[in-house]
């Protein structure tokens, strides 16, 4: 691999990492803040993609699809919160896993019922179509857009969590929920908003991934495992952790595919093992509660 090849593969890795980040950040927040394991998070990714597909097909606009997919997943998340999550929040982890695992299958069959079993796609918007010369090689602009979108989202989330009132409420709620509540903070509301935001991001990831990875029933299961690994590596509930974890997995998976193809399917698990041995709580372990 020459230098240009290295840079291009690095871009491939970054792009995969940013998709993982968009997906994992919501999962991580719910896991860390609410102590809730939502395996159906990938389902929202799929729902967002399919809604986006229908909107793009009807109105012919990628950008409208992006907004609709995000909104639909956030809405589905709100519905899920109101009906199941509130009830399940105090249940044992095993029950949470079983219920949300069941929801995965309900989601897949529901999507099958509405959209059928065939592969669908969303066309890359013309603004982002084509390629750009990087070190004499043609690189797709859309993939640079994914990288940019991921970085921008990470920055916005960071500002939101560290610099806004809502962010302060969320941080207070995570550190000591009872104390925050007795001080008059509506921690439940803050968590609810953050939960819907995370779900919306999953839906957005679905639409963003669609022109590259395509849309089909079961696309959620395909991404769930890498996303969970990112959460575990980063340390649940840590924004920075999800970001670092996604970078680590995205880039090592990409270079692993190319340099040591024999171990390609093992490599992300290998990274997880090493990280957990060195830092059992994840790269950025949650603060002591």
């Amino acid at each position, binding site marked *: *691999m*020459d230098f240009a*090849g290295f840079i*291009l*593969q690095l871009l*491939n*890795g970054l*792009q*995969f990492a940013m998709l993982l980040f968009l997906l994992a950040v919501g999962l991580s927040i719910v896991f860390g803040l609410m102590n809730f394991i939502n395996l159906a998070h990938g389902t929202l990714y799929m729902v967002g993609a399919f809604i986006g597909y229908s909107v793009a097909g009807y109105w012919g606009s990628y950008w409208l699809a992006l907004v609709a997919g995000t909104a639909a997943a956030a809405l589905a998340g709100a519905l899920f919160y109101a009906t199941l999550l509130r009830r399940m929040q105090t249940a044992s982890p095993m029950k949470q896993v079983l219920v949300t695992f069941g929801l995965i299958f309900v989601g897949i069959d529901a999507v*099958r019922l509405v959209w059928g*079993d*065939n*592969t*669908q*796609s969303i*066309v*890359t918007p013309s603004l982002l179509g084509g*390629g750009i010369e990087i070190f004499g*090689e*043609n*690189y*797709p602009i*859309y*993939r640079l857009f994914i990288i940019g979108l991921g970085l921008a989202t990470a920055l916005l989330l960071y500002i939101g969590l560290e610099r806004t009132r809502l962010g302060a409420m969320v941080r207070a709620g995570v550190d000591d929920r009872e104390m925050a509540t007795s001080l008059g903070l509506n921690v439940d509301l803050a968590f609810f908003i953050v939960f819907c935001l995370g779900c919306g991001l999953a839906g957005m990831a679905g639409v963003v991934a669609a*022109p*590259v*990875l*395509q849309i*089909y*029933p*079961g*696309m959620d*299961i*395909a*991404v769930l*495992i*890498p996303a969970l690994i990112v959460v575990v590596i980063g340390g649940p509930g840590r924004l920075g952790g999800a970001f670092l974890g996604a970078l680590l997995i995205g880039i090592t998976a*990409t*270079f692993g*595919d*190319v340099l040591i*193809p024999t171990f*390609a*399917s093992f490599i992300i698990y290998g990274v997880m093992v090493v990280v957990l041995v060195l830092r059992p709580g994840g790269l950025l372990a949650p603060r002591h509660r």
Partner: protein
Amino acid sequence: MNRARYGAAVAAATLLFAAAPASAADPIKIGLNLEFSGGPYVLLAHEVANGLAMAIADKGGAVDGRTITIIDGDNQHKPDIALSMAKKLVYGDHVDMLVGSIGSGVIKAIRDFAVAAKTPLIVPNAGDNEITGVDCNFWVIRTSFSNDQIVREMGPWLVKHGVKRVSLIAFDYAAGHQQMDGFRRTFTAAGGTIVNEQYPPFGPISDFGPYLTKIKEAHPDAVFTFFAGPPATAFVKQFTEFGLKKSIKLTGPGWIVSPLNLPSQGLDAVGVLGILNYVPAIDTPTNRRFQSEFQAKYHRPGSEFAAQGYDTGLLIYAALEATHGKTANKGDLIRAFHDVKVDGTRGELRIDPQTNNIIQDLYIYEVVDQGGKPSFHVIETIPQVQDPPNGCKLG
């Protein structure tokens, strides 16, 4: 949902037949053992089942006064469930033959059972070479293809048409390796060079960016690839996205541009060169009739899987006709398959008694832009492609 309604129609037709005084005999039972739910082949299972039911209905749904009943069995793409489903169909429903499966992952479980139970097993898709090669058996007949049969002819053909340097890429699993091995053997024998080979892990995500970047660095004349379903669409679109389409030919078994994938691939599929045992553009009366009937019912072209289902139905019907609807002697039923010849959607079809694999025409075709929509153009037909025994000792 269409399928349920269709099934109801077939059932109604069957009941009407049964009510007629002339056909009071027991029905002939065909037990399907397909991936109707779970796994990556759900859509394909329904295509095969729909095609098969359509063929039986087109033939009148009965042989010598015995109606033909199709019993659905869902193997969920799991070997253990496929096995218990096969047992249920044979011992519970007393089917006269089994039809399954789509994937090569579950076929071995069903195969071993069918052989032990001396029940005919008709394979309508699974392409594992060994089923009609070293693991061939009297009781197992394949009406679809072997992996090797599909790719073998493409090596010399490409060399003849000026393709000398080829990159290989397929998922790292049995079918992927069998397809690539079969192609490599004939391609290099004809004087071609393989410049690199990549086998991405099967799942979880089909982002081919890293692999396409590596292919680009090797500057091949063509990429020979085996992908199907969602990864096929992903590969075709990313191939264009990364700018490889301009200088490199994309080719391989035609599943990559299956009519099921074409709507999602759009014009990105244009230029892809496929080889397969079926393409909707085959211009024969049987295929035209099949396509118009399928499109009237499902509002889209029938895929190669639906065509294989339909042809499987035709072959089963022809074999049953040959035994005059008698199914008590299962060995005679198998031997009947060896004797029949049908005019299928894919052209002339026979079962080779040497291997129990099908003898069929192969089609080399290109996706072309027809008024802004991707469409198939058949370049060449290779008649009556027959597998060598490949270790099979039936003959």
